[in-house]
């Protein structure tokens, strides 16, 4: 038989002014199971809490109900007090007779009756409360960062600087990502590589960072604090330990005309290559698809010229398993192309712009490579078709972005700013040239951003035309741009030498596959979803996984760096304790009743429900039931409401507790 203690708070006069607290205490005191009932001026004050503790000990109480303010206010306070007195904190409940009663009703009689009922309801509930031990999960204090662009690099450096080991995985042969491709950065026009490469070197030299380039995530198992990650390290065909990075192999490689993806395919590279001179690691990789040795079995020049003997044609892909406690996803973005898309695809291309077949119609990233001092043209703006300098250049914004007809309705956020930057770079490099920009809206919120855009117009003389372009076509060596200026209300035709399209930012290819491996959610465009748009913008709904950079949505560099540091801070918070403690309000499966229909699994937004096989002693499968991982469960209880046999139950909100409350009324 339970011995329940009930404590009615006056809250100064806040409650007692409208509720006859003594009468409530008296009435409730008569309820079966109530061993002690009293009222007090301020229950939350130290004397009030002491009264509570004393009563528990003296009266040998088994459960406690504090009738006072909202549990959102003081539930923690009283549960702590109860715990200090030696009871399990979850045997204490609060009855809200202030916010839900004394403050919202004026009639004393009515309020007193209601308060009595509210307290009575909580008395019935608390009888069914069970001892709930706090859940603890051990935390492996190593983290995985997926993606070696500026987001991944920043997150990795921050975590590593705090003394925790970081595994950084990058798909390409070098870290650096898109930022390494950029020429200058807005709004200050400082050289991208000048600020990026020192960070890349820091990563390479950091004792706490283990770098896997040319590698991908194969499998992710486990949960917060305890992930096992399988990484596929693709064969470089060059031994990283032996290679000195001298580069002789590259100078001797006979295959020299392979389009370099890093240079947006306008520059060429060899079959054994590093994508760009400042690559980290500075170890070449053999592109097996284009290598003569791999294609014909004859060549091997690189191997012959390699002094340290690092070239290894026999090297195999490797699978490496790493244990980590937290994961930062920083896979970044990819640019939309105007090419013809496969039939039935959600995203469509731009036939009216020639489906990408007009050679001098390029995208913004290609312009970056043309403008980059270390790029294929040495920083000269030259047309891909004939190498001439374009004197009339047209920039068109919102290509793919904000075009639901093409399948993308969002704004890509950075294009207005980088197009303004492009007009400046162009003006600096081609003094007698003229830049035109077709745009719909200029979106330049950000520190010094709008000033930057205005500068491109007022000082760098770019001509901005508010209106879109309907068609582009080649006529002789010119590209005819047919647009409109909606401010004037006329059609505009420009004979351009080159056209630069500000194409939309999309998530990396394969973002969805990675999300499925990680068990995180993503939107219809494959951008990863944060747990809460406003309050938890760097966390995934899946505990222990955090987001940084453009994989979550279009972002510029400062925003990406901020989010990466925020993600690192979240990881460090997790790593600040050896054991992860959490409220034991989680769902549990009663295996005897479960028939394995997995309705619970279907509705669980956190992927907390797993399938568990039950076998007899001989190892024969008896049945497959649901299992709720307490480390992952967030405690919403949707599973229980869905389970037809109620074989899964949410601790703290069991059917028994709820029905007891309903029946008390």
């Amino acid at each position, binding site marked *: 038989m339970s011995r329940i203690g009930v404590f009615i708070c006056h809250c100064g006069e806040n409650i007692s002014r409208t509720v006859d607290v003594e009468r409530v205490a008296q009435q409730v005191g008569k309820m079966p199971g109530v061993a002690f009932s009293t009222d007090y001026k301020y229950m939350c004050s130290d004397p009030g809490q002491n009264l509570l503790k004393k009563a528990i000990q003296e009266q040998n109480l088994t459960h406690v109900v504090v009738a006072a303010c*909202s*549990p*959102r*206010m003081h539930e923690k306070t009283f549960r702590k007090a109860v715990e200090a007195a030696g009871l399990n904190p979850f045997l204490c409940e609060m009855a*809200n007779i*202030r*916010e*839900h*009663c004394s*403050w*919202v*009703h*004026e*009639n004393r*009689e*009515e*309020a007193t*009756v*209601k308060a009595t*009922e*509210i307290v009575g*309801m909580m008395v019935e509930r608390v009888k069914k409360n069970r001892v709930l031990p706090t859940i603890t999960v051990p935390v492996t204090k190593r983290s995985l960062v997926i993606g070696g662009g500026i987001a991944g690099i920043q997150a990795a450096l921050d975590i590593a600087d705090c003394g925790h080991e970081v595994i950084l995985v990058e798909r390409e042969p070098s870290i650096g990502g898109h930022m390494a491709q950029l020429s200058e950065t807005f709004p200050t026009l400082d050289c991208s590589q000048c600020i990026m490469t020192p960070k890349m070197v820091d990563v390479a030299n950091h004792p706490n960072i283990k770098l896997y380039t040319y590698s991908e995530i194969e499998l992710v198992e486990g949960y917060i604090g305890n992930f096992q990650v399988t990484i596929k390290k693709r064969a470089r065909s060059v031994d990283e330990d032996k290679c000195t990075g001298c580069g002789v192999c590259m100078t001797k490689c006979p295959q020299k005309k392979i389009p370099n993806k890093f240079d947006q395919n306008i520059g060429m590279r060899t079959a054994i290559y590093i994508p760009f001179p400042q690559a980290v690691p500075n170890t070449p990789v053999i592109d097996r698809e284009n290598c003569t040795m791999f294609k014909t079995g004859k060549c091997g020049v690189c191997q012959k010229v390699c002094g340290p003997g690092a070239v290894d044609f026999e090297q195999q892909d490797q699978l490496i398993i790493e244990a980590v406690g937290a994961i930062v996803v920083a896979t970044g973005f990819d640019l939309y192309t105007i090419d013809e898309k496969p039939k039935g695809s959600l995203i469509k291309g731009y036939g009216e712009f020639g489906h990408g077949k007009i050679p001098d119609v390029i995208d913004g990233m290609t312009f970056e490579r043309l403008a980059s001092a270390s790029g294929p043209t040495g920083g000269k703006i030259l047309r891909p078709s004939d190498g001439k300098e374009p004197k009339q250049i047209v920039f068109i914004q919102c290509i793919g972005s904000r075009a639901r007809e093409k399948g993308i309705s969002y704004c890509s956020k950075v294009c207005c700013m980088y197009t303004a930057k492009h007009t400046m770079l162009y003006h600096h490099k081609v003094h007698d040239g003229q830049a035109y920009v077709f745009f719909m809206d200029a979106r330049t919120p950000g520190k010094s951003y709008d000033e930057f855009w205005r500068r491109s117009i007022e000082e760098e003389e770019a001509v901005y035309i508010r209106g879109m372009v309907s068609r582009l076509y080649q006529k002789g060596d010119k590209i005819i741009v047919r647009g409109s200026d909606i401010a004037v209300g006329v059609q505009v035709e420009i004979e351009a030498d080159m056209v630069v399209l500000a194409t939309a930012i999309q998530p990396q290819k394969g973002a969805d596959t990675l999300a499925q491996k990680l068990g995180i*959610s993503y939107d219809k465009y494959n951008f990863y979803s944060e*747990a*809460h748009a406003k309050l938890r913008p760097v966390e995934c*709904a899946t505990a222990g996984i955090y987001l940084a950079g453009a994989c979550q949505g279009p972002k510029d560099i400062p925003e990406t760096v901020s989010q990466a540091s925020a993600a690192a801070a979240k990881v460090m918070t997790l790593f600040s304790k050896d054991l992860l403690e959490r409220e034991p*309000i989680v769902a549990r499966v009663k295996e005897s009743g479960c028939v394995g229909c997995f309705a619970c699994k279907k*509705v669980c*937004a*956190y992927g907390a429900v797993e399938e568990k096989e039950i076998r007899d002693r001989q190892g024969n499968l008896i049945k497959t039931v649901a299992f709720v991982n307490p480390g992952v469960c*967030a*405690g*919403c*209880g*949707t599973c*229980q*409401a*869905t389970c037809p046999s109620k074989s899964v139950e*949410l601790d*703290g*909100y069991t*059917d028994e507790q*709820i*029905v007891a*409350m*309903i*029946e008390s*009324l």
Partner: protein
Amino acid sequence: MHPEKQTHDFEPKIIAFVCTWCTYAGADLAGTSRMQYPANVRVLKFPCTGRIDPVFILKAFQQGADGVLVSGCHPGDCHYIAGNFHARRRFAAFRKLLEFVGVDLNRLQFSWVSAAEGGKWVEVVTDLTEKVRAMGPMTEFKELAMEEQWSGAINTPELKEAYSQI
């Protein structure tokens, strides 16, 4: 200052199932803002509307509730990502079932009340209370509880006769 309480012939019993993050907090806000509303409502707190089983509504009616309110976070605001979306479907179906067996749906109210909508909480509770008050007591389930077994059959003249002979 204290106005005389209006007297009514009938004080309905209203049971509210609410989620802790939005509606419960909204009701708290109504309190801290000292808004006034009828004292008929009894609030049961759940972590999420996703936890609210239709059986609870049934149980509430059987237990003598004259009106039931289910309230949670606005779509997209769920603390648990999608609990309210699941609840929305579940209750869309359940209310159709109750309607079909003859429950007047005016007694069953669903609402989204956010933590910032103290005023809306007051409005929803007041509206439901007054609506149900006007409808009078919910007698259907109470009558069922009062009836003996085989109620339908007892009324046949043959059985009545048989009973009277016992």
